[in-house]
């Protein structure tokens, strides 16, 4: 057979193909898998060159991250000040900074490294819930600089802290009486700003908003590099206006041979009328290539649970907080869903609270009743509070779900104590229920909200332990390691309608692998997040992960 064929031999290949679960050799030609099996089976078929560099490694299908954002690539140009360790696109473990002093120290280092004395210093990843609800004040940030504007963006991306200089320039002081400027105990603004008006004012005086800047090739390359570090070979950008500039940056990146991830951008419905959106998706699909897959649309129905902006059914929030916000009106959702459904487009619908989930189920049911469509695979994203009755409706309607397993670790304690109470918190991100009822599901990180790392996400779904060590619903909702691996490979691919080309190692599919030092199925389930990732293979191109 062709001399272009390369046969990778490995200590073990876990294929995620139930018809041939395990192998030692995989033959690759023109970026695709020609054959999978033992040396004898493959050599007879292909006659290609054997590449033995992975002879001590374990290959799995490259991980599929079904819900993350390009902002992960944008954020890493800025210093990280979250409480937990996080791995950078350069492969470096950036230590968490779990105290105010440590945050200030991290910012002081970053400030010293800056050359332009007037440039604003932005940082990201802070969440007071992760450091015992201690607040970051303008006085803390003034210890970093009183002459350079400083802004720390919270993990939620909805709240920021600024130093006194920014408040002065924005003319926000004790006489300012708007809801988004939080006052400190001294009667002056504390430096915490949130909401449209305060954000607008602050970004105007800063002259720039790092969260809405134009996408650059560097951002996309950082995203791809993080994917390689974490073993991801297919990644979403699950909410994007897809402005012309972004489309051009994605086109250029995806056509480079050395670009090492398949991108699946979802068009944000909020920026288009349904008619415009349908036309835009059809046009974008025509520009798809093997590493760029347009076609899905994202709808956002409610907010976040820990921000108390998710819409919950009765009895609402455990601590009595008022119900959250609709981002799409319940009565408007059915017409939007119907427009895309009738056009044959797959929808990814963000619903955090169970009332939002109910409204989304109603909308899909109405669309399915009006225009029955086999295999639409509309997918609920996050869907953190759904009960068995809602999962049964998903099953009946032919829907998928992508559950936010990382929430168990990062906000499970907040859900237990504040937002949901013990019973509902134990069912948080109910992977076990989805499995029992038979709803196809994936699990995700929502990076950069939580770290991009499918092995960590799998670890969360297997162990269901919170950051304080509390275990939530492990007896009823936990996955086995095998089930969790399905949810970050073939089943995640299914939710993106890409399971015919990625998600398992079998003949005909893209040659996309993650290269591990250890087989996740052979280690203690508590340690799967610690398995070393050597790198990835994407379309037959080998890329060793950077290690800084």
């Amino acid at each position: 057979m062709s001399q272009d064929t390369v046969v990778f031999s490995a200590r073990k290949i876990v294929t995620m193909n139930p018809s041939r679960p395990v192998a030692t050799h995989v033959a690759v030609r023109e970026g695709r898998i020609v054959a999978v099996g033992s040396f004898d089976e493959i050599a007879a078929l292909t006659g290609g060159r054997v590449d033995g560099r992975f002879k001590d490694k374990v290959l799995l299908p490259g991980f599929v991250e079904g819900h993350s954002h390009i902002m992960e690539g944008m954020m890493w140009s800025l210093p990280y000040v979250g409480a937990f360790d996080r791995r950078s696109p350069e492969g470096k473990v950036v230590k968490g900074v779990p105290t105010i002093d440590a945050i200030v120290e991290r910012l002081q280092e970053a400030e010293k490294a800056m050359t332009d004395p007037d440039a604003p210093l932005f940082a990201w990843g802070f969440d007071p819930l992760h450091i015992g609800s201690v607040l970051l004040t303008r006085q803390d940030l003034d210890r970093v600089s009183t002459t350079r504007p400083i802004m720390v963006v919270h993990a939620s991306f909805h709240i920021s802290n600024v130093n006194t200089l920014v408040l002065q320039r924005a003319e926000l002081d004790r006489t300012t009486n708007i809801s988004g400027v939080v006052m400190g105990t001294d009667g002056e603004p504390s430096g915490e700003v949130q909401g449209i008006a305060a954000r607008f004012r602050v970004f105007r005086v800063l002259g720039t908003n790092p969260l809405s800047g134009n996408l650059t090739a560097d951002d996309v390359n950082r995203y791809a590099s993080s994917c390689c570090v974490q073993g991801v070979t297919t990644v979403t950008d699950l909410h994007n206006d897809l402005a012309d500039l972004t489309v051009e940056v994605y086109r250029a990146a995806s056509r480079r041979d050395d670009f090492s991830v398949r991108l699946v951008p979802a068009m944000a419905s909020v920026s288009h009328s349904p008619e415009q959106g349908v036309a835009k998706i059809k046009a974008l699909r025509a520009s798809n290539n093997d590493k760029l897959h347009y076609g899905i649309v994202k709808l956002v129905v409610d907010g976040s649970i820990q921000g108390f902006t998710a819409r919950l059914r009765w009895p609402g929030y455990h601590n009595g907080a008022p119900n959250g916000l609709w981002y799409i009106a319940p009565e408007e959702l059915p017409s939007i869903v119907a427009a895309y459904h009738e056009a044959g487009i797959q929808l990814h619908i963000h619903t955090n609270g169970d009332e939002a989930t109910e409204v989304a189920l109603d909308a899909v049911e109405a669309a399915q009743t009006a225009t029955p469509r086999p295999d639409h695979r509309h997918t609920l994203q996050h869907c953190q509070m759904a009960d068995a009755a809602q999962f049964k409706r998903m099953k009946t309607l032919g829907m998928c779900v992508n559950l936010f397993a990382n929430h168990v670790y990062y906000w499970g304690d907040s859900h237990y104590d504040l937002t949901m109470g013990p019973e509902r918190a134990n069912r948080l991100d109910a992977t076990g229920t989805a499995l029992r009822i038979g709803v196809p599901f994936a699990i995700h990180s929502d990076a950069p909200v939580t770290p991009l790392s499918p092995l960590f996400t799998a670890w969360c779904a297997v162990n269901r332990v919170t950051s304080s060590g509390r275990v939530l619903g492990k007896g009823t909702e936990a996955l086995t390691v095998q089930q969790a691996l399905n949810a970050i490979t073939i089943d995640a691919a299914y939710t993106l309608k890409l399971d015919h080309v990625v998600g398992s190692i079998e003949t005909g599919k893209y040659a996309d692998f993650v290269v591990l030092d250890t087989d996740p199925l052979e280690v203690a389930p508590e340690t799967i997040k610690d398995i070393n990732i050597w790198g990835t293979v994407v379309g037959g191109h080998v890329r060793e992960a950077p290690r800084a």
Partner: protein
Amino acid sequence: MMVSSSVKTPVTVIGGFLGAGKTTYLNRLLRSDSGRYAVLVNDFGAVNIDAALIAAHDGETMTLANGCVCCSIGSGFLDTLGRILDDGTTFDHIIIEASGVGDPWRIAEIALVEPSLRLNAVIVLADASRIVTLLDDSRVGDTVRGQFERADLVLLTKVDLLDRVAVDSARSTVSALRPGVAVVETTEHTLPGLPDGAFRPASRFAATDADLTDHEHDFRRWSYSRSGAFDLDALADAFKALPPQLLRLKGACRIADEAMPLLLQMVGQDWALTAMPDGMAAEHDILLVGVGTDALPDTSALDAILDAALISPTSVTTADINRRQTAFTL
């Protein structure tokens, strides 16, 4: 303290649930030809502007024959507003349509913190045929209720499609939410122009409706004049104690430890103290003029609330209050 730029562009925010008639109202305002407006629609592709008004259409921005500009901005709302403020074109008025599930007050706050803007009014529209049901709805009732929380003026729309009993029911339901806030009954053909800052219906209100005409007399004024100064924290408490029937309060306001009196502007429960604009040097320490509904309590009761915030014994001055009032053009 905020140093104000001398010319502030008024901002009016139009809110209301889906189907309340916001787009119809926008078209009415754009047709009125009474000023050069910038209109921002905080929703996707929903700007359904009469084709006859449009002179040029460039992507999401439309330029109208009368000089108005209209943008549908979806998720890029703040960027678009920033561009409008920066590009040097001056507008007589900026009108922002909030999304059907949005809280118009959150957007109105922009005009309270952006020095080049001043908040004129938050106008919330309510479909007379639906508002009672919507407020009772278990899913959206709280959202709809929240939209009225800071309304300066409510337009009850489509009243010609209902009988009197139904209209009265809608009116009393809205009035119960916000006692004292003016509720104006409208039809597609009697939508008012933009109110001035005192919510006194301006002359361009189509006053064909007898009920609407009645409401032109529904405002009362209150003047408060003292020498001395306020304690800022006590004043903040006093403002909270003022009755909701007081719609606006404006004027010179001396604060302890400040060399010069400041300009107070208060709308509903929201207030700001800024430097007195040039040419408006205050002759008095404290001279405030308020406008309220006809249910505004006696001035002695109102005076007592603010007196509690004074730091030193004061006496009522004999200033010519009427002359000073004109300087503040409420």
